[in-house]
């Protein structure tokens, strides 16, 4: 589904602030993979996501999505097939527009001059009801009035409205309170399973990294130092994971937000 081959990314090339994030990074994802990613600070997890989504073009290498070469496709083109959630719940929706208008933008159906109609509203209402947050009765309220958790759930709904080929979740529950985070995670699990969406999720919770999905990557200094799946992964404990990381990266995992317990 996703094929990253020999990608290099350097920021501020040719200046004193030059920073090599990746050199010759390759990664292959099968359709339906749910990959969790953990790693130390500055390992390049978010940069990897930004490169896949097309916020910038890579210096070398190619990115293929479902057989299409998207290496130089602008981010808004890739967004047709890539859904994306950030840590900041405010980034995914327009605060001064109503819930239904935000959903209409995400649905993207109809021509440029089409208006929201009753059929659209009915569909939106049904989808919102699935979130079980009472949003279906607040469709004409501006999104700015929602709480962080509600906005993140709405963004999740928006980015999976037209099932994407790839869903990128960049610590999307990290800014929420534990109960809401649990709920948003539950919705995520449901949406991903039902749509069989290929998903990549950055998390700082080691337990979560092992519990969710079918494959786990550990990153450090722009490299993938550990890639486990299947039998090996299902037997692994958090302690094993830490030991493996030390072996792969040659140092202890340092992530100031890493949660070792659950």
């Amino acid at each position, binding site marked *: 589904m996703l094929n990253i081959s020999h990608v290099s990314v350097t920021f501020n090339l040719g200046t004193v602030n030059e920073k090599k994030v990746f050199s010759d990074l390759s990664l292959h994802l099968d359709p339906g993979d749910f990959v969790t990613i953990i790693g130390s600070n500055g390992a390049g997890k978010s940069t990897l996501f930004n490169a896949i989504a097309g916020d910038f073009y890579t210096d070398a290498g190619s990115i293929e999505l479902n057989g299409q070469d998207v290496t130089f496709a602008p981010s808004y083109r890739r967004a047709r097939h890539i859904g994306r959630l950030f840590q900041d719940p405010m980034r995914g929706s*327009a605060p001064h527009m109503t819930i239904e208008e935000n959903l209409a*933008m995400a649905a993207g159906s109809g021509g440029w*001059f089409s*208006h929201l109609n009753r059929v659209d509203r009915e569909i939106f209402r049904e989808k919102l009801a699935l979130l079980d947050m009472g949003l279906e009765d607040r469709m004409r309220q501006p999104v700015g009035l929602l709480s962080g958790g509600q906005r993140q759930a709405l963004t999740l709904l928006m980015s999976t409205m037209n099932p994407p080929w790839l869903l990128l979740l960049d610590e999307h529950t990290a800014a929420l309170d534990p109960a809401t985070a649990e709920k948003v995670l539950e919705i995520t699990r449901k949406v991903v399973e039902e749509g069989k969406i290929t998903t990549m999720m950055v998390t700082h919770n080691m337990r979560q990294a092992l519990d969710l999905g079918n494959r786990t990557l550990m990153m450090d200094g722009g490299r993938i130092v550990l890639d486990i799946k299947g039998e090996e992964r299902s037997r692994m404990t958090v302690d094993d994971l830490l030991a493996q990381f030390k072996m792969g990266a040659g140092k202890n995992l340092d992530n100031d937000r890493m949660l070792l317990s659950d």
Partner: protein
Amino acid sequence: MSLSLIQTALELGLICSLTTLALFLSYSMLNVCDLSTDGCFTLGAVVGAVVAISGHPLLSIPAAMLAGVCSGYITAFLQTRMGINSLLAGIIVNTGLYSVNIAVMGGSSLLNMNKTDTVFTMVREALSNTPLAGQNKLTVSLIAVTLLVILLTLFLNTRLGMAIRATGDNPDMVRSSSINPVFTTTVGLCVANSITALSGCLLAQSQKSVNIDLGSGMVTIALASLLIGRTLMGKGSILTQAIGMVVGSFAFRMVYTVALRLINKPFLLKLISSLIVVLAISVPYLKEQWPTIRRRLAWRKEKKVC
């Protein structure tokens, strides 16, 4: 105050409310302060006047609007493709338009339309035997404003209109909806500037002359009207807000007319409009800051420090 003064305020307010509606699109929706408004207003006026003088009063309106679209496109191109800051792009286009406008007028800085057939003279003839006789200015401007309010409201509720609103609100979200914010910014500025040009075209024809300074200060006047309208009508639906723009323009003209009557110095218009903009933006800000300022003052007094 005499009735004719109110009528003049109403006519001017209505014609200039078109520019306010244009800023409503660019400033309130797209979050771009389009400083090419002054030049574009004059551009619409001179293009409309030249076309009317050449004997096509009806054609003058689409011609002026088309000129506005071009001006808006250039402003948008500079800020989306050339890496020029949006305020600077507006100022650059505004400066360039000064020369363009004089060129359109054939090198002169003043055109007279006393004997020209304009949209207003055509309507005056059409209304000559009806109860509305003599109200041609009011009729034309009322029709134009009503049409524009309805069309703009419909437009802003289409998918394209929503994308334009979202661009000013959260460009990230527009991108993730697979829409290019460059495209929405360009369309928004083209539409806004065509409305500004229409406003200039109508003002020139209603006063039967156009000079190169017709549009100077228009952006501040329109911004003042916009802020007054927002205060008076609040932030309801798009239609309410659009009507608020018209109400604001009229209220501004009334304040201006009264102020002018009291001090009898027409050249103060621009200073008054600047003051209104300053007050409209700073008062809500200061109101928010006031408790902190008061606490700090009290603290200074108590501690005898500064």
